[in-house]
């Protein structure tokens, strides 16, 4: 059942229906829909004005997932087959917080990635790199009571993607998160520190604000590193949090 902590009672006045909404992002801290350097945005980004949506009960609620849903293998992508996958084993761990620095327990984190050679186990991935029979590239966890999550996986490879001449995606792991509300839903990608491809990647650079963009880069972390076993990377994820007081309209 719901693993979410209870919110302050004043956040929702049932009598009037007035609700404290979720904080809207400051300009430049999230990507725009149209980002011409990323060619696929040109025919897919909305062209008409977006309609500003008040946050109603429909937006401040969202699906609730239980701790029991994922199993241990879902958190260790190196233990999902008979053998171990090839590549550099790594640990990716961190905390899911809201933008008021409060941990989010019970948040579902889904990840997917390519293998060490830069190939996804997907029928549409035609990159001429080998599949690894011991690697699917998918994981799921639910954050613990303090908002922490941890995956064991292998470091994904870079791969070409035809967006422009000689285009290569920096190594990345896709993450999908459900926070407390449907408006705090986040799908993102985690990158690795020092990757020389980052300054050239239109997807990474789709977020104008440098501080916000750098949230997408994990930090090498001695504390997460396990001796004789695997390097650790710390990746904290910040979801939109709730305004403190109801908006009266």
């Amino acid at each position: 059942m719901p693993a979410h902590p209870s919110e302050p009672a004043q956040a929702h006045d049932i009598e009037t229906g007035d609700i404290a909404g979720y904080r809207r992002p400051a300009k430049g801290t999230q990507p725009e829909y149209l980002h011409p350097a990323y060619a696929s945005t040109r025919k897919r980004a909305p062209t008409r004005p977006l309609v500003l949506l008040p946050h109603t009960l429909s937006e401040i609620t969202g699906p609730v997932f239980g701790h029991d849903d994922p199993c241990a293998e879902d958190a260790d992508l190196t233990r999902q087959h008979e053998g171990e996958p090839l590549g550099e084993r790594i640990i990716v761990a961190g905390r899911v917080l809201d933008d008021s620095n409060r941990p989010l327990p019970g948040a579902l984190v889904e990840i997917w990635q390519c293998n060490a050679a830069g190939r996804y186990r997907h029928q549409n991935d035609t990159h001429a790199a080998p599949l690894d029979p011991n690697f699917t590239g998918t994981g799921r966890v639910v954050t613990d009571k303090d908002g922490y999550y941890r995956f064991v996986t292998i470091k994904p490879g870079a791969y070409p993607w035809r967006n422009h001449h000689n285009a290569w995606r920096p190594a990345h792991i896709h993450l999908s998160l459900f926070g407390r509300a449907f408006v705090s839903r986040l799908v993102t990608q985690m990158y690795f520190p020092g990757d020389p491809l980052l300054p050239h990647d239109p997807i990474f650079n789709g977020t104008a604000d440098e501080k916000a963009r750098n949230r997408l880069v994990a930090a090498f972390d001695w504390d997460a590193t396990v001796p004789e076993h695997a390097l650790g990377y710390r990746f904290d994820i910040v979801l939109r949090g709730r305004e403190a007081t109801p908006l009266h309209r």
Partner: protein
Amino acid sequence: MSDMDELIATPSQTVGPFFRIGMESLYTPDLAPGAADRIAIHGRVLDGDGQPVSDAILEIWQANAHGKYAHPDDAQALPLTPGFTGFGRVPTDTEGAFRFFTIRPGSVPGPGGGVQAPHLVVAVFMRGLLIHLLTRVYFPDEPSNATDPVLQLVPADRRTTLVARRNGNELEWNVILQGDNETVFFDY
């Protein structure tokens, strides 16, 4: 709490073309298995050239038939429906088509003590969207659409893009990404 305590939220990034690997385990094309009054909603996702988007994924969020969300922040004294989470997730096929089954939700509270007409909230993800789109599906032949506080915010000539239409025994609702019939998307 001062502004100094606020953290910048993590930016969104595209799901890319290979999301199935990570998101398939929660594919939920039937939100209400076994419900007597189940309805099918189908449609297509089309890009700026009118071409089908074969690598989109839709997520649906809705209240139950009583207008109650299965969520701790819904304090209404209304019954939950056992087994009904209100969440759906469905990908498009090679023709850009999707179909999901659900029940018609009840009305839910709106801003300022108002009432919202029955609706589904839909998030749309795909390669080429660095941040997902948010839209809604309303139901045809629903008198309360005329006073729905969110529909009132939408220019009158675009409201029809948010209302499903009858197509045989099913409802049809399309996601048109660009152009004259472009679906209304929300700044959320």
